[in-house]
């Protein structure tokens, strides 16, 4: 009995000798595996007969219960299916789509909104003292007392203080934004409200006591304006302390773990809100964590798949298998030799990597001996073809290209480096008189994410997942996640303990010593 061909996602695993279909947990059916399987299919057989494709995982399979769907030999017959859907995407397409999403202008309106608010507030703040000084001259110039020397001295003070305030506000607030955070920054909002209230109250007082009564004491008005500017400078000091200084002293130690390969780093941060702590951690991530390489995880995934394969239960009589514990016990009792395979596989891989690395080092060293730097005097004399660094790199690259490519393939790094980038790096090393070992360093060990070009980061859009509100402060034991498309960073917080220190005085003359002998002599 054959069921109609179902157009759903399949993934193909090919072991050494046999190919078999596994409709596993849906997470494994991803486009990347299909891309891989497509390349694998060029080698494996491609017969397209499907006997019994179940549409859901075999455990808890209720839809096909009524029909005896299992052909006993269906695992052994060679069937290989590729992605048969017409909407198959390759990995490059996905990267392109996500990049287009990032470049969209959707989130910018919020930034412009806050920017205009800030500019309006700034203008209000700066023009207020000037307005205080100018309005009496405009509204009641005849009644006004003339401005004496002390008053004019105050003009200079107002001018310079305004200039200092202008520079300070520019330095603190008008910096290029580092990130777009999900919620508003609480301290900045509070400070803006404080400044607004402050200026409004000053205007209120001015309006009631000076404008209405048309006060003639101009010096008093000037002093009032000076006091406003002083208070604004103090508010700016408060802003510095709240926004910058409070975060400097380390208060928490954060542990950041990458979910895919367990790479862990620790950072010390001050008292920050969760979103700002997340921002600091992401910036450290780009500098400290080695780049995320999904190719390195395929081995553990295939092992997991094999374990899952061992736990298959067949609905022989159409009954629902209810004893899951019996299944696990049966699986545990099986003679599992996968640890053996892992050990030998890893030893073999290690050996292979070392051999390729030795060949690579020798090839690069030999290639570097082919070029020599020309000194100034020789440059005028030498007739032959003089090359600039780029041409020199292109000249010696072919002799090491093969060894380098093989090494990168073995360590699964080949997608991180393009030919263009390798030649650029080579030209750079030649220009700066670097040794072959220095040139190879960036290929022998995987560096931090920033070192690679943006296409290979695989981590541009971050989502903060937190149980506590993201504007609340960090606390001891708070946990949050920074999710990316492929992996997530798990962050846990620990408070740095309160340190009790006491002192003990030692008199420098109190260091005295005596010999402790212990001899045994025979008589």
């Amino acid at each position, binding site marked *: 009995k054959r069921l109609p061909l179902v157009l759903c996602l399949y993934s193909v695993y090919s072991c050494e000798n046999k190919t078999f279909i596994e409709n596993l947990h849906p997470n494994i059916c991803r486009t990347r595996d299909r891309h891989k399987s497509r390349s694998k299919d060029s080698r494996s057989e491609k017969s397209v007969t499907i006997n019994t494709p179940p549409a859901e995982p075999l455990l808890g399979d209720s839809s096909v219960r009524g029909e005896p769907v299992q052909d006993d030999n269906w695992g052994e017959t060679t069937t290989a299916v590729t992605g048969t859907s017409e909407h198959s995407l390759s990995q490059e397409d996905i990267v392109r789509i996500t990049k287009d999403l990032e470049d969209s202008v959707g989130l910018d309106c919020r930034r412009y909104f806050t920017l205009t608010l800030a500019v309006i507030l700034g203008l209000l703040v700066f023009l207020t003292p000037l307005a205080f000084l100018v309005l009496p001259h405009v509204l009641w110039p005849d009644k006004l007392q003339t401005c004496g020397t002390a008053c004019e001295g105050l003009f200079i003070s107002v001018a310079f203080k305004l200039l200092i305030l202008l520079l300070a506000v520019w330095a603190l607030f008008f910096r290029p934004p580092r990130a777009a955070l999900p919620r508003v920054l609480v301290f900045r909002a509070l400070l803006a409200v404080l400044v607004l209230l402050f200026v409004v109250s000053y205007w209120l007082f001015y309006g009631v006591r000076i404008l209405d009564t048309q006060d003639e004491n101009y010096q008093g008005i000037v002093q009032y304006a000076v006091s406003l500017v002083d208070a604004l400078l103090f508010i700016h000091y408060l802003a510095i302390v709240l926004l910058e200084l409070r975060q400097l002293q380390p208060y928490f130690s954060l542990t950041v773990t990458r979910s895919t390969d367990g790479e862990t780093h620790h950072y010390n941060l001050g008292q920050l809100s969760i979103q700002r702590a997340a921002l600091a951690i992401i910036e450290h991530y780009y500098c400290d964590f080695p780049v995320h390489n999904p190719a390195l995880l395929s081995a553990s995934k295939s092992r997991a798949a094999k374990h899952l394969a061992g736990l298959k239960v067949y609905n022989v009589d159409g009954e629902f298998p209810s004893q899951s514990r019996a299944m696990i016990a049966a699986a545990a009792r099986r003679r599992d030799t996968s640890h053996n395979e892992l050990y030998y596989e890893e030893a073999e891989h290690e050996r292979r990597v070392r051999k390729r690395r030795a060949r690579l080092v020798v090839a690069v060293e030999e290639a570097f001996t082919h070029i020599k730097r020309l000194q100034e005097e020789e440059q005028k004399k030498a007739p032959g073809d003089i090359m600039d660094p780029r041409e020199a790199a292109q000249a010696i690259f072919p002799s090491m290209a093969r060894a380098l490519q093989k090494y990168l393939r073995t360590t699964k790094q080949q997608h991180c480096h393009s030919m263009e980038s390798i030649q650029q790096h080579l030209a750079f090393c030649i220009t700066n008189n670097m040794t072959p070992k220095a040139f190879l360093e960036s290929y022998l060990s995987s560096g931090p994410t920033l070192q690679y070009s943006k296409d290979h980061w695989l981590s541009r859009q971050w989502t903060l997942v937190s149980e506590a509100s993201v504007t609340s402060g960090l606390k001891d034991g708070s946990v949050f996640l920074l999710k990316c498309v492929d992996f997530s960073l798990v962050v846990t917080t620990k408070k740095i303990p309160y340190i009790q220190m006491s002192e003990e005085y030692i008199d420098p003359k109190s260091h005295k010593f005596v010999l402790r*002998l*212990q*001899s*045994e*002599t*025979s*008589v």
Partner: protein
Amino acid sequence: MTCYIPGQPVTAVVQKIEIQKLRQGDRLILGFSIGGGIDQDPSQNPYSEDKSDKGIYVTRIAPGGPADVAGLRVGDKIMQVNGWDMTMIKHYQALKKLTKPNEDVVRLLVTRKSLEQAVRGAMGLQ
């Protein structure tokens, strides 16, 4: 061994042991090793009960040698050698008193814990 209180006389039950020196080549040997002395570290003494006791102790006995034959045991504290006091003496001075070249016989007064216990047991029985 009683604890030592500075300035107070020390009482102990002692045993007289007479050792005949044996001639070996041009040396006269007794067949045991000593440790301790007022210039040594008393806390490293494995045989003393009171770790501030700086007396001279027997640390090793050569089996079959003159000291073994005479009845000296490992862990004995030597109180006198031929009349010379050994309770307040430096290590090398004790050595010199034991190895005088013109003496053939050394008469030691030694004390050990089993002696005290034996005497106390005998007195208790009485």
